[in-house]
């Protein structure tokens, strides 16, 4: 009967001041080949460290082959789970054989003596990963791919029932990657070893995994077959960019592609977007709108404001006011001219006070001139004007046809849609 290899139940985990995993639950069945993916910094490595009991979970329960990991001794944990890290850093000049031998240390007695059986296992692991020919060479002299195979041999020497790889293959060239993957597939299919592969390569993972775990900022966004997880809408949300999925006509595998070609097409459109920002709230908008091919203008900003610095660095046409002064009439008139020549107006997540409330009037002007206006969510939370004037003005603007944006990805999507019309 198949067991559950790894089970997370409501696990939260992280570091001293930062919770990374938030109430995560999932399971990996014995004999599965699972890919763990997700954007940078979403908590994949933390999940792996927590599963290997290197990090104590803040709450929740983790079971390894049906046993609570808190009750497993270090050596029996090593017999259940082996971890191949991103890179092994060996400062001293150990030979490859000595390095692989480390995989048996958990089973050695107090004096660390290795039995003939230990040596047999080490040699078998080295044959399996094709590193026996390097046995007397120094580990540090080997190339990255060879080192990674030695690391795999070392973990195999533990004879674990499950292996987790932490982006261990992403920096290998295509040849070595195929080689390591073939070894992994062999282990999975022939020996029934459960594999969890942390990988950024969605296509590669799609072609070899039974199942996907897709993570999104400390949570599992979806767990399922490649077909269930590789959905354009889901991936676009998780990764925050446009992705499309199609089936490769030759191999029949799912293929995820970014939309660089559509970007190139859009670049020619060059619709003009005026951004109302301030206090650093505009930087991400400027960057993304420029990348997506829009012509960006901004204002009114105070000199020395971090958005003003950014707009200068990005070569964006900007209306400026004196530092730390309320927006005056001259600057406002210039900004109105700018708004009149743009196609869209976007208000960033800038806090409003009496000094810059007038900037929100620009949105009113734009609406009157028949331009599309996009307002951010949560203006009320950032409204420091007397009597929440900015909030009531924004409600008025929504009534007159302004649209709401939640994430930059949403926003660019809506802008492209409008431009295409």
């Amino acid at each position, binding site marked *: 009967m198949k067991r559950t290899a790894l089970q997370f139940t409501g696990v939260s985990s992280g570091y001293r001041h930062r919770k990374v995993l938030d109430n995560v639950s999932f399971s990996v069945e014995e004999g599965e080949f699972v890919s763990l993916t997700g954007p940078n910094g979403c908590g994949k490595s933390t999940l792996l460290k927590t599963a*290997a009991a290197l990090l104590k979970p803040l709450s929740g329960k983790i079971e390894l082959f049906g046993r609570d990991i808190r009750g497993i001794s270090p050596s029996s944990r090593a017999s259940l*789970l082996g971890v191949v890290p991103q890179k092994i850093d060996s400062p001293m000049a150990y030979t490859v054989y000595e390095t692989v031998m480390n995989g048996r240390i958990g089973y050695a007695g107090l004096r660390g003596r290795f039995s003939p059986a230990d040596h047999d296992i080490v040699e078998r692991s080295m044959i399996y990963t094709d590193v026996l020919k390097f046995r007397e060479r120094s580990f540090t002299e080997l190339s990255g791919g060879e080192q990674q195979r030695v690391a795999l041999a070392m973990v195999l020497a*533990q004879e674990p029932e499950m292996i987790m790889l932490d982006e261990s293959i992403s920096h290998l060239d295509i040849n070595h990657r195929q080689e390591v993957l073939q070894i992994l597939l062999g282990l999975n299919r022939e020996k029934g070893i459960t594999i969890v592969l942390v990988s950024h390569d969605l296509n590669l993972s799609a072609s070899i995994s039974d199942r996907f775990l897709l993570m999104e900022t400390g949570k599992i966004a979806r767990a399922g077959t490649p077909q269930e997880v590789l959905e354009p809408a889901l991936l676009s949300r998780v990764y925050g960019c446009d992705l499309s999925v199609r089936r490769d006509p030759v191999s029949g595998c799912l293929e995820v592609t970014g939309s660089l070609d559509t970007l190139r097409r859009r670049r020619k459109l060059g619709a003009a977007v005026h951004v109302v920002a301030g206090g650093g709230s505009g930087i991400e908008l400027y960057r993304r709108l420029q990348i997506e091919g829009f012509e960006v203008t901004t204002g009114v900003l105070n000199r020395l404001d971090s958005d003003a610095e950014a707009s200068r660095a990005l070569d964006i046409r900007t209306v400026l006011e004196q530092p730390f002064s309320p927006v005056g009439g001259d600057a406002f008139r210039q900004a109105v001219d700018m708004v009149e020549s743009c196609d869209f107006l976007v208000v960033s997540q800038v806090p409003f006070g009496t000094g810059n409330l007038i900037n929100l009037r620009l949105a009113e002007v734009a609406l009157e001139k028949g331009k599309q206006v996009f307002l951010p969510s949560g203006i009320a939370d950032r409204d420091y004007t007397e009597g929440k004037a900015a909030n009531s003005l924004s409600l008025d603007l929504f009534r007159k046809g302004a649209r709401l944006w939640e994430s930059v990805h949403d926003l660019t999507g809506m802008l492209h849609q409008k431009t295409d019309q």
Partner: protein
Amino acid sequence: MQRKEICADNRFTGRVRSKERFRMILFLGSVPFLLLLSLLLGPSGIGLPDLHSTSGQAILSLRAGRVFTGLITGAALAASGALFQAILRNPLAEPYVLGVSGGAGLGATIAILGGSGMILSSGVPVVAFVSAIITLLAVYLIASRGSGGQPSVYSLILSGVIVSAICSSVIMFLVSSASTEGLHNVIWWMLGSLQASDTSQQLFSGSLVAVALLGAWVISPRLNALTLGREMAHYQGLNADLLIVASLLLATLLAATAVSLAGMIGFVGLIVPHVMRALFGPDHRRLIPLVSIGGGTFLVLCDALARTLLAPLEIPVGVITALAGGPFFLMILQNRMKEAWIG
């Protein structure tokens, strides 16, 4: 079955190729001769003293006492250095890296200056030993608070350096305001000497070092995995945190004993582990016994030179370790730097 065991042993020692084996036999074989040679050297003349006279017997027992002190001090320093280099994964680690010398030095200075009449001369080593241990505990606590739980390598090294610096500035202040005699005593203590202290202290230190070396030898197989980092050691089924704490304690015990016995002798704890690694490989199962023997013999030999070269004047042994040992070890390392450490 018995046969198979032998086979297995050969497989393991596959690394010890004929060249290395020859080197090891040469090294281990020369140790008794070098120790004997040191017994024959001294300010009273080269060769065995007249054993029929009382003065001759006294000279021999004095030399034997120094050989014994040199052996345990050198072994303790070198093994401590090897342990620190493995735990901290840093080629610059040495017995004094975590502030042991600073703490011991401060304790000894206060004892020498504060109680020249009150505290007996045998009290200084005890004070030095205790303050060295206290310093390490302080460094460890500061480092663990800084990194929240298990201290990282860098936080340990940094707090060690800072605590050492604080200790040495206090020492400098005390020395600058001390009498000429006190100044002289402190400086000589710091330069280090194997001048035999009383037998009970020798025996006590000897047994401490023996116990700590045994402990180091027991954990030595696991140190190999630990050099791949705490995480890797953990993944391979070791209790990495326990292993690190145990190694730190053993290394500090060794260093503190050495300092309390012979003052601050430099160089042995840093270089002997590197040279032994270059000659015989980094496997700690072999390295720990080899550095102990190598460090002890090296220090005994240096001490013999120190008391003979300018007799009746005695050169501080710490001067000889670096001055005579430096070029010799540089020659070895020049050709075999890669085998010693790859950064």
